[in-house]
């Protein structure tokens, strides 16, 4: 590694290379220690680092805030960790255009703070925004509850710059909200888990912050009743921005956000059914004040009709902190040793059945389970907990037997090594391989971690 170390040090400077990563366990990727950790200070430096590693035959693992490094398999072979967090600048922001271009190492929280004074937002609702970086959010295509109203990063990303496996820099898209100039490479890189290129900057279409917002949290005695409400909303002409199904202990905003505010902004325990356990359907309305009030009225009434055991309406700080807690549920950074984080994807109308299966399997295997599901989009995150590894394995196998698109995003290494962590059905694998081959023929980017 000596010549590589000195080459890389000469690119980024001594202070930004960790020579002995073994001393810094936080940089290990699922237990594998990198040869070096490098933190380039610019896209150019990053490209130079990647080109140098490429010439030396060493693989590269891109890293943002590290919150989603548990995803996928551990990397194979020798690798460098290329840390993007110094790439944290705004490149262009013209608020009146409602677009922004930022470097990929910027955290979501920082981006939020940049946009807020102008009444704008990028409503991706990712977990742990203080650490999650734009690059990581795009590479994992992590979604959030408000995908229902605003779409995902796929819909909001309008331009991108990447460093490819060989160190070559390329870009696509632009800084306008509508653009068909050339192929949509943004879609290719989004969700490719760093296996095709390293995202170094991203341009987004922004959304104006709503003038009013409210949460209608509806507690139910059964999953079926909660989904009956979800269906009624789907059939109506209401336009909520999020309809989230939750199961398990209701999220406790304060303990999760860790802000330690003195007065809990969340509703008191037991009030309107919030604060206990079981099935909740949480609806988020945003927009003009009159439209939000209409949603509060109609959803509350529909919930009563669906047999809700309690309806809690939240606004302002309570509203904000409840969603912060919900957004954090699928986080993979702080998974405990006895916990699995799973992502189940299916057609929206099948979600109820899938979750019924998951709930009964968890009960049968004596496992605790929390669910955060985008009730109208067919996507659920499950946190499954229990000290019996055999029971967890059996739960996973049984659920996978019924639902093929089940990704094990985080969990005990032994289990991950053994099961198909991306599910049993990877569509169009040969085409996916050809793309990987075209973009990274030597398999240098996140080798072994994704589906190819």
């Amino acid at each position, binding site marked *: 590694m000596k010549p590589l170390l000195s*080459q890389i040090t000469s690119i980024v400077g001594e202070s930004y290379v960790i020579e002995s990563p073994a001393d810094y366990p936080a940089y290990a990727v699922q237990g594998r220690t990198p040869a070096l950790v490098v933190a380039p200070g610019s896209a150019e430096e990053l490209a*130079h680092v990647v*080109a*140098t590693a*490429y*010439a030396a035959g060493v693989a590269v693992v891109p890293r943002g805030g590290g919150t989603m490094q548990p995803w996928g398999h551990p990397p194979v072979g020798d690798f460098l960790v290329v840390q993007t967090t110094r790439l944290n600048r705004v490149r262009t922001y013209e608020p*009146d*255009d409602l677009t922004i271009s930022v470097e990929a190492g910027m955290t979501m929280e920082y981006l939020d703070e940049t946009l807020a004074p102008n009444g704008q937002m990028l409503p991706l609702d990712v977990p742990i925004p203080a650490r999650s970086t734009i690059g990581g959010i795009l590479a994992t*295509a992590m979604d959030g509850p408000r995908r229902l109203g605003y*779409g995902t990063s*796929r*819909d909001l990303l309008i331009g991108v710059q990447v460093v490819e496996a*060989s*160190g*070559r*820099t*390329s*870009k*696509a898209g*632009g800084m*306008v*909200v*509508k*653009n*068909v*100039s*050339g*192929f*949509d*490479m943004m*879609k*290719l890189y*989004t*969700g*490719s888990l760093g296996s*095709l290129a390293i995202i170094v900057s991203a341009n987004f279409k922004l959304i*104006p912050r709503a003038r009013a917002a409210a949460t209608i949290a509806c507690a139910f005695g059964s999953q079926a009743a909660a989904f009956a409400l979800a269906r009624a909303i789907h059939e109506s*002409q209401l*336009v909520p921005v999020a309809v989230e199904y939750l199961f398990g202990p209701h999220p406790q905003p304060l303990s999760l956000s860790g802000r330690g505010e003195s007065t809990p902004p969340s509703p008191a325990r037991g009030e309107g059914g919030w604060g206990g356990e079981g099935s909740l359907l949480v609806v988020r309305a945003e*927009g*003009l004040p*009159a439209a939000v009030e*209409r949603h509060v009225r109609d959803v509350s009434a529909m919930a009563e009709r669906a047999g809700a055991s309690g309806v809690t309406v939240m606004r302002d700080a309570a509203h904000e902190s409840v969603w912060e807690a919900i957004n954090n549920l699928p986080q993979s950074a702080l998974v405990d040793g006895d916990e699995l984080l799973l*992502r189940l*994807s299916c*057609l*929206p*109308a099948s979600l109820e059945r899938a979750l019924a299966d998951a709930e009964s399997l968890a009960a049968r295997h004596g496992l605790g389970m929390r669910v955060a599901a*985008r009730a109208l989009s*067919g*996507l659920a995150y499950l946190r499954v907990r229990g000290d019996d590894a055999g029971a967890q394995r059996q739960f996973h196998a049984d659920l996978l037997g019924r639902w093929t*698109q089940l990704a094990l995003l985080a969990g005990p290494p032994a289990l991950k090594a053994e099961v198909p962590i991306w*599910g049993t*059905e990877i*569509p*169009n*694998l040969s085409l996916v391989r050809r*793309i990987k081959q*075209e*973009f990274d023929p030597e398999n240098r980017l996140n080798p072994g971690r994704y589906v190819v």
Partner: protein
Amino acid sequence: MERTQLIEELRRIVGPRGVVDDPHALMTYDADGCVMDTGDPQVVVLPTSTAQVSGVVQLAARYGIPVVPRGAGTGLSGGATAMFGGIVISTARMDKVLEVDTRNGRVLCQPGVINYELSQQLKPYGYQFAPDPSSQKACTVGGNIANNSGGPHCLKYGITASHVYGVEMVLADGSVIWSGDGSPAAPGYDLTGVITGSEGTIGLMTAAWLKITRLPEAVRVVLALFPDIAGASSAVSQVIASGLLPAALEIMDRLAIKAVNDMYKLGLPESAGAALLIEVDGVEDGLDELLHDVTGICLRNGAIEVRPARTLAEQNQVWAARKNAFGAMGRLSPTYYLVDTVVPRTRLPYTMEQVGRISREFDLPIANVFHAGDGNLHPIILFDRRNKSQNQRALEAATSVMHVSIEQGGVISGEHGIGVEKQDYMTLLFSTDDLAAMAGLHQSFDPHDLFNPGKVFPKGRGCGELAALRKAGVAWAELKSS
């Protein structure tokens, strides 16, 4: 391969009625809506099934004959034109809506379904297909996906790419894939995303699962009249900047108004230099407040009048005028050249000023009808094709518009695609490395350039050549790091 033998084999695959080889009949396929570029196919086939498409593609692949997918041929960038001859595969006979699945918010259709027909069929269910190009009464959903088309309502609902869950596609070896079905997080790469907007260059779509959108509870339409286009453009810029989100914001200028005023009995005054069509939709509650805010901005920007379209009939009339405005240009001039470009929305007023300057400089009238809310301009250069000088000036004026737009941070196409028309502008936006990455993606689908060859990438810069350049990455890396 002999043409007669080819035609015979094609007949065997698609049946005698599915092959067009009569030279007169073939002439209608020599161009799409962009008459600047023409090319004759050897033969046109009209398959009725995926299996037939696959058979035709395998035959073409075996003999190295180009395959050009074609929907309704309303494209405006030469995308469906056979620049190098070959087989045009028309989806005209694959025009069935196969399944409406409201529970999953999706519809399964064949590619030749007409955009407007689809929304008509969804209406009884209380749904629509949101992308609504002005050509929607003619264009196909296959063409919409291939071009990632836009439309007035994309301001609020997003472009076609946000409304496609998955497509069935015949690849260059005749194999058939499904890229998705509406399940949101299938593992792998987002093939649906990269297929959308690929302009028929990587495969032929034979079916699609499209996202359907619930019809809004309430809709309001108003027409704000301005003395000139500057006022209308700055009103649009300010509406966007102030965070209001109408469903559509469309501008028509004086010439466009002149073209549609009588035809659609709009009764707009001569003094109107520009009309801004505003639509807001959603739940009833709050809509008037939103509209009030938007029209307030119009009035502060010098609007002389704000006319609500009170009845559904009035709304339809205003929209018909807007959507048929290109067609109405025939009343003003024998030919027109429609330029498609997008600028950041704050640059709209300045760019429109420059379009006016270009019109004077090249001494050709330019009408404007466009998706203002997205910053998507459509200067329509009016000229007579038979007049050589006008022809030349029209081309030069278009190039000037493009340069102004790029200088303002704009791009070369917002919705009509690159096709043949814009391919040589690609280098104004993209470096060789940028193009090489796109070529790499293209090659992984269609390594022998079977589908729609000679499109999108700059002339003389073949996809294969670009991709090869990129494959030589090792040498490049050494060069850069030394």
